[in-house]
């Protein structure tokens, strides 16, 4: 993997901390996205060539990625560039605000870049066109091959300035890439940028792999593999490729997830027909049994403060969601609605639990408060499950399968995302069929 992930911030210029006049309310579905003009970044004529990077087109390519990121949020409406009224370099110095207002833009992004001595120097500015003011500006230096990440970091900064929320563009998604007929599926671990670029395969498909999940604090991953026909939870370092079995259990371990500080894995261990929840401390290797019940207890997920674990259990008959303290005490059922509930996942903000609901042969992705109240179903389909949160707790990614014909034809599995408002449902681009997505934290944090 690319080890040069650091971004060297050499100059942060918050020139004017003006009162923000443009503000986006992202707490409800946005039916009136903010018109934003994203000018191509001006490429300095002193720029030198760099292997594998089309320097001449770099300004346009970066602005295209920013544009795509903003369009994908559903909160912004990036305007067509052919209506732009000023050259990128001039606009970056000082835009003619009234001209940009004419094309109905409310915000403008400008920038310039220079590739020299094998370094990429980028600076950008965000302008409030109504107030005729600069809202934020930032300059940084990195290696030119990191240019896509530069676009994502700029997108995050602008998103943060306009919405008041942390961005989620400089992130990756790990998932299971699927191919082959439905009854002979080949599954590989795959990782990509959140916009679908830079897909890399981490396993060869020789053994069945399932449910990869990111460590929220670093680039480690935990997943389940049938390596040597022994279904076990594994730990994988995606930078080095090294991996190991988690713990020494005399049976199947599955449904792994990291604790919020990344130091523990919580998972299920199945023995003699009974699945219970265990944790293993990755430093001390100490294993603790958290639940002890004759029912199936699985799909555990820590609260972001580490104090609680949500999980699903069929102890009441059918799958329902329960919450307990992280030592296993104080187990409380939180779902009582009509239907079966599974895969609880605690929001990184701590206020919501996302889940899968099954009712009358339909599958729903929804969110509820952590005591089970305020249930909101966001999307209904033939089959979908396994939500995973964007790091800012605003978007869920999950997978959806289609109904198959009598020979399995017409079957597909794809990744989808939806805002917690229930708006802006969209399919994520993947090279192949895909399932079990897990969203990383911000890489530049």
């Amino acid at each position, binding site marked *: 993997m690319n080890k040069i992930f650091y971004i060297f911030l050499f100059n942060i210029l918050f020139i004017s901390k003006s009162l923000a006049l443009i503000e986006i309310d992202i707490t409800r579905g946005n039916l009136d996205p903010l018109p934003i003009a994203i000018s191509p970044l001006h490429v300095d004529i002193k720029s030198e060539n760099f292997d594998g990077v089309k320097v001449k087109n770099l300004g346009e390519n970066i602005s295209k990625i920013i544009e795509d990121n903003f369009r994908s949020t559903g909160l912004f409406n990036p305007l067509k560039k052919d209506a732009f009224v000023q050259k990128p370099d001039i606009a970056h110095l000082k835009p003619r605000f009234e001209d940009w207002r004419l094309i109905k833009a409310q915000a403008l992004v400008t920038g310039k870049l220079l590739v020299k001595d094998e370094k990429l120097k980028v600076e950008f500015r965000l302008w409030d066109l109504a107030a005729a003011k600069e809202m934020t500006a930032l300059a940084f230096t990195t290696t030119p091959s990191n240019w896509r990440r530069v676009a994502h970091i700029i997108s995050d900064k602008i998103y943060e300035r306009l919405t008041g929320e942390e961005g989620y563009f400089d992130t990756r998604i790990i998932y299971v890439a699927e191919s082959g*007929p*439905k*009854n002979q*599926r080949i599954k590989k671990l795959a990782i990509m940028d959140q916009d679908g670029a830079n897909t890399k395969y981490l396993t060869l498909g020789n053994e*069945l792999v*399932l*449910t990869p999940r990111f460590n929220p604090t670093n680039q480690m991953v935990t997943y389940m593999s049938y390596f040597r*026909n022994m*279904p076990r939870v594994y730990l994988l370092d995606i930078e080095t490729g090294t991996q190991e079995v988690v713990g020494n259990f005399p*049976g*199947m371990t*599955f*449904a792994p997830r990291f604790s919020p500080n990344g130091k523990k894995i919580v998972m*299920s261990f*199945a023995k*003699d*027909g*009974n*699945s219970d929840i265990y944790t293993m401390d990755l430093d001390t290797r100490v294993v603790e049994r958290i639940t002890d019940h004759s029912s*199936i207890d*699985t*799909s555990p997920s820590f609260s972001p403060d580490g104090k609680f674990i949500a999980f*699903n259990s*069929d102890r009441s008959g*059918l*799958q329902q969601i329960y919450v307990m303290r992280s030592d296993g005490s104080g187990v409380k059922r939180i779902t009582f609605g009509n239907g079966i509930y*599974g*895969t609880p996942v605690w929001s990184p903000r701590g206020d919501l639990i996302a889940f*899968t609901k*099954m009712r009358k*042969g339909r599958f729903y992705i929804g969110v509820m408060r952590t005591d089970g109240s305020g249930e909101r179903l966001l999307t209904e389909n033939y*089959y979908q*499950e*396994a939500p995973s949160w964007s790091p800012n707790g605003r978007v869920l990614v999950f997978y959806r*399968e289609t*109904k*198959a*014909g*009598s*020979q*399995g034809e017409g*079957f597909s599995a794809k990744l989808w995302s939806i805002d917690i408002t229930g708006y802006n449902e969209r399919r994520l681009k993947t090279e192949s069929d895909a*399932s*079990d997505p897990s969203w990383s934290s911000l890489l530049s944090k």
Partner: protein
Amino acid sequence: MFNKNLKNILLVIFATLILSACSTAKKSGNIDGDVYTGKETVKYLASGVPDRVFFATNKSSLTTASRATLRKQANFLRKNKNLNVTIEGHADERGTREYNLALGERRANAARDYLMTYGISGKRISVISYGKEKPVNPASTPLAWSQNRRSVTVKVN
């Protein structure tokens, strides 16, 4: 306390009545209740010894027919003392992946436990769950799902 017990007993009786009503009502073709009763996907460990048993949705209890099949398997294993088996547990596609892994494990163990009560050593029987990952019938129909809710006894040597 007594009231609560009585209530539970009544509930159980009530539930049984409903369930038996359902199973008679839904008996059609090769599905009884929603347990597959046909032979279309069945293979044989030996002549007259079916390799698999079928389960109701979300359930791991053995039907009368399943027990009869497993007694034949136990008999077969008693006669072939050096033979070891793996029991694969499977679920249909209409559940969450992780729950289905647990459910497959529970089903495989239900079959294993029954073989053990008929004198087969647990050392000879390993289990593995594939959850919903290995459907025998890839269609998205109630018949296919009933064929996929299964435990399969496989010879390992």
